[in-house]
């Protein structure tokens, strides 16, 4: 009576699992192929005063799986992007102190395809 249902359940789960795993597989593959997948560039720095300066940060990304709710910690400042996609260069203007710059990028938080939350912490 339930045998058919059980087979349908197993097959459905198999396909849903593949669909759920696919973004993760593609992301991991892209990152392993290109470890410098997320590139941050600092440019056009202009001093506000002796301690604080304004800087343009550009972000580019290599994977075909978009990242959602991207948060990048630079020193004590937090840089946020709602979405980042492959091939698009994102620019943000941010105020940084010398201390922030010396500390550099401390961490990155994002959601792979909106499904899997990934947190990276960098220790220099």
């Amino acid at each position, binding site marked *: 009576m339930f045998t058919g249902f059980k087979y349908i359940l197993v097959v459905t789960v198999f396909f849903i699992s593949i669909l759920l795993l696919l973004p993760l597989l593609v992301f991991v593959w892209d990152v392993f192929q290109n470890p410098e997948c997320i590139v941050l560039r600092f440019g056009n720095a202009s001093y506000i005063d002796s301690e604080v300066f304004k800087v343009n940060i550009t972000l580019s990304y290599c994977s075909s799986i978009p990242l959602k709710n991207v948060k990048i910690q630079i020193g004590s400042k937090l840089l946020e992007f709602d979405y980042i996609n492959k091939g698009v260069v994102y620019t943000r203007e941010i105020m940084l102190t010398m201390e922030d710059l010396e500390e550099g990028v401390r961490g990155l938080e994002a959601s792979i395809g909106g*499904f899997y939350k*990934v947190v990276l912490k960098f*220790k220099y």
Partner: protein
Amino acid sequence: MWRKVIKNVLLGVFKGLIYYGVFWVLIPWLISSVLKVPFEQPLHLAILILGVFISLGVVSSSVKQFIGIIFGVLSSLLALYIMVGVLGVVINTSVRYDGVIVEASLDYTPLMILIIGVTLIYTIVECFERLVELEE
């Protein structure tokens, strides 16, 4: 009589091996190979889990069907415990890249919810199946 007992024991061992293979070998292997993170558990724990799965399987298929349902459900609960308690929903790893130590953690809750949900549905369906068999 003996043939029936041996058949039930073999069926139970098979069930136990299936549970062990799926929840202790296949799913962790799949997760660790996708995320490139090793799944390392002590050998004695693996033997214990295998023993418990086989025991529950043998008891489930050897005792009266109504009581067997309970042991079948216990196998599923153990499988769920392995999923949540041993594997967890967050994988942590640490790698050194270009002189920088990168601590990475990945939350794969959606995948785990799917596996847990399906295990529960499968268990409930199996219970109904056996209850229907009992009534017939």
